[in-house]
C-alpha cells in the first residue's frame, strides 16, 4: 500500500506536478559516490544492466530511501523495422516494476538489423515508414509498461540520404501518435546542430518542450572538426548555456548528468552537478 502511494506521489509528468531537480546516471563504478549525494532525488539506470531478480543492493537502497529510479533502455531497438523482441520488452517492463519507477525511457534509434548487432544506437531515416515502425514498437512497449514512456532522440554524425521530415517534425509526429514523453538530450541537440552548422536554439524552439519528461546533460569532445557526444568527457560550457536557454523557455522537471566512463575525481563530478544546478536554477544536490 505504501509503495503505491509513493508511486502516485512521484508521478513524473510534463505538467510540472513533481520536480526532481538534478540527478545522475547510476553506474556500479560510481555507486559509492552517488550514494553520498545529500540532495539526490532521482537517478537513471541502464535497464539491461538490472537483473530480473532485482537491482543491485546499492540501487535498491536508493529506491527504498525514496530516490526515484528510472530505467533507461538501450537495446530494445524501437526504431527497427522488425518488431521489438517480446523477451526484451518483458524484461524492460519487469525492471520498471522492480525499481518502482515513475517512468521509463528508451531511444528513437535502432541497434540491430539483418540479424547483425550494431552494438550502438543508430539514427533512423526520417521517413513516414520509419515513423510507422517506431510508433508500432512504442505501442508494443507501452502495452506492457504500467508507467509512462519517454523517448530520446539520438545524436547522429550523418544523415540518411532521402529524409522526408526534419528533426522536429519527425519527433513531434512520433510523440503525437504515441502519447509518449520526450527525453530531451541537450548534448545531442548541441552535437547535431554543431556538426551541421545549424542553430541549436532554432531546433529547441520547434520542439514540444512541454512534453519533456526529463533532460540528459552529457559531455563530449571534438576530433577533426566533428563533435562526438562521448559521455566520457566533461560537459562543455556551450551545453550548459543551452541548459540555461532551455530552462528560460520551459524548465523541465528533472535534469540528469549522464557519464559512462573515464570517471574523474569526485570533486570534478560534484562540480559538474553543481554547474547543471546553477544553469537550470535548481538547488545543488552535492
Amino acid at each position: 500500500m505504501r509503495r503505491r502511494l509513493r508511486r502516485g506521489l512521484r508521478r513524473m509528468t510534463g505538467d510540472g506536478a513533481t520536480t526532481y531537480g538534478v540527478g545522475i546516471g547510476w553506474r556500479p563504478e560510481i555507486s559509492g559516490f552517488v550514494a553520498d549525494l545529500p540532495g539526490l532525488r532521482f537517478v537513471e539506470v541502464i535497464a539491461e544492466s538490472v537483473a530480473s531478480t532485482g537491482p543491485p543492493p546499492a540501487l535498491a537502497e536508493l529506491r527504498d530511501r525514496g530516490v526515484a529510479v528510472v530505467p533507461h533502455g538501450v537495446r530494445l531497438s524501437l526504431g527497427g523495422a522488425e518488431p521489438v523482441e517480446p523477451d526484451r520488452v518483458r524484461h524492460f517492463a519487469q525492471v520498471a516494476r522492480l525499481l518502482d519507477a515513475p517512468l521509463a525511457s528508451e531511444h528513437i534509434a535502432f541497434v540491430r538489423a539483418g540479424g547483425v548487432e550494431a552494438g550502438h544506437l543508430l539514427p533512423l531515416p526520417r521517413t513516414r515508414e520509419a515513423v510507422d515502425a517506431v510508433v508500432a514498437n512504442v505501442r508494443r512497449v507501452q502495452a506492457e509498461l504500467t508507467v509512462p514512456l519517454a523517448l530520446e532522440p539520438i545524436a547522429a554524425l550523418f544523415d540518411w540520404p532521402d529524409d522526408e521530415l526534419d528533426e522536429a517534425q519527425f519527433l513531434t509526429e512520433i510523440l503525437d501518435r504515441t502519447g509518449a514523453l520526450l527525453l530531451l538530450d541537450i548534448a545531442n541537440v548541441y552535437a547535431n546542430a554543431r556538426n551541421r552548422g545549424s542553430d541549436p536554439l532554432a531546433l529547441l524552439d520547434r520542439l514540444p518542450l512541454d512534453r519533456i519528461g526529463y533532460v540528459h546533460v552529457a559531455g563530449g569532445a571534438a576530433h577533426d572538426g566533428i563533435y562526438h557526444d562521448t559521455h566520457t568527457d566533461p560537459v562543455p560550457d556551450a551545453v550548459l548555456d543551452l541548459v540555461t536557454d532551455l530552462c528560460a523557455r520551459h524548465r523541465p522537471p528533472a535534469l540528469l548528468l549522464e557519464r559512462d566512463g573515464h570517471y574523474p575525481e569526485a570533486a570534478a563530478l560534484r562540480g559538474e552537478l553543481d554547474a547543471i544546478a546553477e544553469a537550470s536554477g535548481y538547488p545543488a544536490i552535492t
Partner: protein
Amino acid sequence: MDVLGQPDTWGIPGPTFLVFFLSTAAVLVVGTLVHRSVRFAGRTPSDLDHLHPVQVAWLNGGDSLAVYTALGALRAAGAVGTGADRRLHRTGPLPTGASRLEWAVHEATGRRIRAGQLTGDGGVRTALTDLRSGLERDGLAPTADARLAARTGPLLLLGLVALGAVRLGAGLAADRPVGFLVLALAFLLPTSLVLLFMVPRQTRAAKTVLRQMRVRYQHLSPVNSPAYATYGVAGAAMGVAIFGTAALYDLDPAFAAQAEIQRTAASGAGGSGDSGGGGDSGGG
C-alpha cells in the same frame, strides 16, 4: 586382571584408562574453547571511520595484505611503479596522510626490492609490528599473552595424545584391544594440531568490524569496476584492504602483473558476459 584373565597394560584396565583419557581431553578442549571465547572477544571500536586501510588489511589478511594495501595506496598516488626487471621503484613523493607502513614501503622501494620481498624488509617489519601493537591496544588483535595462553591448552592436549600413543604402543605389543583408543587418537590428534596452529589473528570484535566494512564499502569491490579516480587514494587502499589483491589487479593490472603480486582472494577473473550494461553515447 581383565575378563579373560590377561594382565592389563600398565596395570590400568582399558575402560578406566579410556574414561580418564577422554574426560581429560574433553576438559582440555572445552577449556581451550572457553578461554579463547573469553580472551579473544576484543573491543568494538566506537567509530569505524578511524580505522586506516592498512589496519583493516592486516586484520583481514595479515602482514602480506597490509603491505599490498600500502603498495596499492602508493601506486594510486603515483608514488611507486615497477620496471621491466619486476622490481619496484619510486615514481613520486609519499602522499600526505600516509601511515607508517606506507612510509616504510615507500622507503623500501628505494632499495630495488621486489613486491614479494617487502614483508621481509627491516623497516617494513618494524612498521608491521607497530601496526599490530596498535591493533592489540585497540582490542582488535589479541595480545601476545593471549595468543600464548591460547596455545597452552592445545599443547597439553598434544601431551595427552602422546601419552595415548605410548599406551597404544604398549597395548599393541601386548596384543591388547586398542580399537577405542585408536579412534580417540584419530580424533584428538588433528583437533589439537588445529587448535594449536589456528590461533586467530583477530578478535571477535574485529571480525564483526570486517563484516561491517565489507557492507559499507561494497562499492569498492572489483566486481563493480570501481572508478578509483573518483574514490581517491583512500578508496583504492580500502578496496585492497577489504577485497584482497584482486582489487590491486583491478586498480592497475599492468602494475600488479609486472610486480608479480600473488592473487589472493580473487574470484574467477571478472568480466560480465555481455556489454549490454554500456551507456548510449554518440550516435551513428
